[in-house]
């Protein structure tokens, strides 16, 4: 069973690594200015890359306990960002400064894939996978 948990954690690490490199690509290569909400999501995502890697060698299930709060906080910010972005919440509620609106559209692949959407997807997947590892661990103990 440890193998299954290891692979699940490995997938979490992959998602975090791709998200990190992807966000750096948007800001450093394509020169999109990151808005303030993006920065808060980065604060939650970037440490996950390191933490998951440490938890993989040797496999240590405790990593789930330390990373789930980060992933959940990131998810909440991403969720809020998406509400603003898709105009479910009014734009005036956005804590943005002049020039770097959190609701300005930079990419829109296939008409619905945007940067906040990608972030929310990544945090959702990571959180679900972490919960899966935790549940598998509980079942093993019984």
């Amino acid at each position, binding site marked *: 069973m440890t*193998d299954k948990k*290891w692979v699940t954690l*490995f997938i979490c690490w*992959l998602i975090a*690594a*791709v998200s990190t*490199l992807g966000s*750096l*690509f948007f800001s450093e*290569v*394509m*020169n*999109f*200015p990151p808005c303030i909400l993006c920065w808060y999501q980065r604060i939650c995502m970037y440490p996950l890359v390191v933490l998951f*890697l440490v938890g*993989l*060698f*040797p496999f240590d299930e405790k990593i789930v306990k330390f990373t789930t709060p980060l992933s959940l906080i990131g998810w909440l910010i991403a969720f809020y960002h998406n509400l603003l972005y898709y105009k479910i919440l009014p734009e005036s509620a956005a804590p943005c400064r*002049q*020039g770097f609106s959190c609701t300005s559209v930079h990419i829109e692949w296939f008409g619905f894939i945007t940067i906040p959407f990608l972030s929310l997807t990544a945090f959702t997947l990571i959180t679900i996978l972490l919960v899966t590892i935790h549940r598998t661990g509980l079942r093993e103990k019984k």
Partner: protein
Amino acid sequence: MKKNKKLIIIAAAVILLVVGFFAAFKIYKANEAAKYGHIADSDFKKFVPDYAPKLGPDSAKVFLVEFLDPECESCREFYPYVKMIMNEFDGNVQLVVRYAAFHPNSKFIIKIVEAARKQGKYWETLELLFQHQPEWGSHHAPKPELVWNYLPQLGLDIEKLKKDMEDPEIQKIIDKETEDGNDLGVRMTPSFFVNGKPLESFGYEQLREMVRDALQE
């Protein structure tokens, strides 16, 4: 799963991610160069509009387009290097100044330099404002009104300058600059284009080499 196998999986993933990132980087930059090169061929005026301030002869082989913001520190730092390039390739390069008004007082300052241009003192004014930029353009406490202390030393007619600043033509230029900057993907200042190709990696040497290569083509 053995520990070795796990290590190999991780190492392979790391290598793939890093290689993928740099491959994407190269492909993206090459696409950008091709895209803007195409605009330069089909729509030269997008890069070099008639109204833009120019330094160097129209017959120059290389046109160096700089999107700058008089209030941006990097533009100030970089300006002497642009002058060095202009001196080194004297007569073969034309500098075309475009504006990217990214700071709170940029538009105000652009109006001043454009109004000074009507009195034939464009480059002097731009250079003087760059020189005093740390005083009037500090990010924490910008004091744009300070510029009125420096400008008289150039022998400008300040009354006329203030009147010219309100010229709707200047506002039209600023709007056009914003539009062109967006079309050309300008998101930082200074942004350079050498014969329509964007400067790939930012730096004095890189810009100099790009101009030299364009002259040899």
